[in-house]
């Protein structure tokens, strides 16, 4: 897996690499309107069977980066390769092997049924895609809704339909922008498990989400983008994972140096032995634990990008 490396020069098609963007700059240039730079400089690499989460504040350039990888925008400079293809020039070939979800949804005519929408999408890719519909309908819990009109679907069920449409042609790589919008916790788990299964089969994914806790369950690696500039975390993502302990009062006991104390909150590496030591000391001091939870590496990296604690 190609992790945490700043590539230099152009993208070279590697057997193990499915996506590469190198020093790209993107400017929106609508006719009769002023140009706007969306990405100042961005680079990323993704290995086959790997997943990458893109995190950053609103307007940082996350969706634009996905659009570039999908071939919807040609960067004014830099190099991009996805599955060995130039997305802007060879988008049609690329789309045969790529699934894309932008702004969290796929639009279909409201009066179509769920089955109509999936059949229409699958028909672009041939009989194998059409044959895959029943399986996807089951995975995304749409089995009892195939004859239901889209206009009658809840937001969550529309999102399930959008996701099923993205995977209908069993793409080698998926570019997912906010895939879990409006999904309930159970469906998020099902989707995470489905995505992980695909990664094990050698498929790849690039995902953006504002819900960093969920994103942490979907991806193995993260890339920060802010003000149109990408930044690779300095260490492997796992090392950013944290355990948070909230106590009933400020802690005065002497704690191991890895533990950061901020008022009634303790933050430490997600290490069971360290946790046991800390809990012992808290117990000795009579401090009660109010809440304990983990924070994934993605959450920590995203919090870091906003100036939070890492």
């Amino acid at each position, binding site marked *: 897996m190609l992790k945490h490396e700043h590539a230099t020069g152009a993208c070279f098609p590697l057997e193990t690499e499915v996506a590469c963007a190198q020093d790209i700059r993107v400017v*929106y240039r*609508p006719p009769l309107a002023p140009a706007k730079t969306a990405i100042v400089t961005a680079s990323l690499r993704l290995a086959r069977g790997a997943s990458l989460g893109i995190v950053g504040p609103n307007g940082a350039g996350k969706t634009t980066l996905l659009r570039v990888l999908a*071939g919807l925008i*040609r960067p004014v400079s830099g190099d991009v390769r996805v599955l060995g293809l130039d997305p802007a020039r060879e*988008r049609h070939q690329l789309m045969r092997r790529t699934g894309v979800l932008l702004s969290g949804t796929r*639009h279909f*005519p409201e009066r*179509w049924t769920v089955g109509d929408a999936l059949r*229409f999408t699958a028909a672009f890719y041939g009989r194998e895609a059409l044959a895959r519909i029943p399986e996807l309908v089951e995975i995304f819990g749409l089995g009892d809704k195939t004859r239901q009109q889209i206009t009658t679907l809840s937001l969550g069920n529309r999102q399930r339909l959008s996701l099923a449409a993205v995977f209908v042609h069993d793409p080698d790589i998926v570019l997912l922008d906010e895939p879990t919008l409006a999904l309930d916790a159970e469906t998020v788990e099902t989707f995470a498990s489905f995505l992980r299964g695909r990664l094990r089969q050698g498929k790849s994914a690039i995902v953006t989400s504002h819900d960093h806790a969920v994103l942490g369950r979907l991806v193995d690696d993260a890339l920060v983008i802010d003000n149109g500039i990408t930044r690779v975390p300095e260490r492997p993502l796992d090392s950013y994972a944290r355990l948070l302990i909230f106590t009933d009062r400020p802690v005065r006991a002497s704690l191991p140096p890895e533990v950061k104390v901020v008022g009634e909150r303790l933050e430490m590496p997600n290490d069971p032995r360290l946790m046991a030591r800390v809990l012992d000391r808290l117990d000795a001091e009579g401090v009660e634990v109010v809440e304990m939870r983990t924070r994934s590496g993605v959450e920590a990296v995203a919090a870091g990008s906003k100036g939070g604690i890492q």
Partner: protein
Amino acid sequence: MKQLLYVAWIKIRTDLAEQTRYPVQFVFGLLTTGAMLWGLGIAAARTSGQSTETGALATFIAMGAVSLFYLIPRALAGGKDHPPEEAMLYPYPLSRLVGALAAVSAVQIGAGLAGIYLLASLVVTRSAPAAGYVLAAMALALFSVAGAGLLVFALKLVFRKVDSVAMLAQLALFALAFAPTLDRSWVAAVPLAGAIRWLRQPDLPAWPVAFFALLWLAAGLWAVARAERAVVDRGVAAYG
């Protein structure tokens, strides 16, 4: 192309199934369309000195052509059904996608309106018109406006706010098709008007109309391909 035609057929069949979900309105729509167009045809025939059947057929054909011209720019870029950006995520160039959709729509519109005309004619005149002549005139008219529709699609793709221009072009097509200038030879190059002229004077050769329709179609397909490139170069699809 075969697969794309299948996709277009699925879309149109699905739209049609949605319409036929309300059978009373569907039948009422067919009846009122037939009656209204036949009535307009009678008026057109009286002002132009044509026979009632020819006047009515001209109105049916004009309606078909203008409907197709209206539909093409909205086939993929209208509303939120399939915004251009999403249509670009399908594994085909937009020109082929919208071309296939336009072709199937043309068949659907042509067959529908020609069918209504034949039935209306049978009911009103108690005699069946020459189906080949009706279908040929309808096909020529639809073919003649396809390129112009694709040109508007291309403009809409890049500039977005061109609905008023498209509406004006639609009115111009209709007006030219029934204008006194119909006797001039250059009318063969004008979408719809050339086909109406041939309809009124079937002894004239149809090939100049078909030739110019082909030129319009080539220009339209080229414009869509060029617009798709411009959209990618400028990031317009996302810019909405």
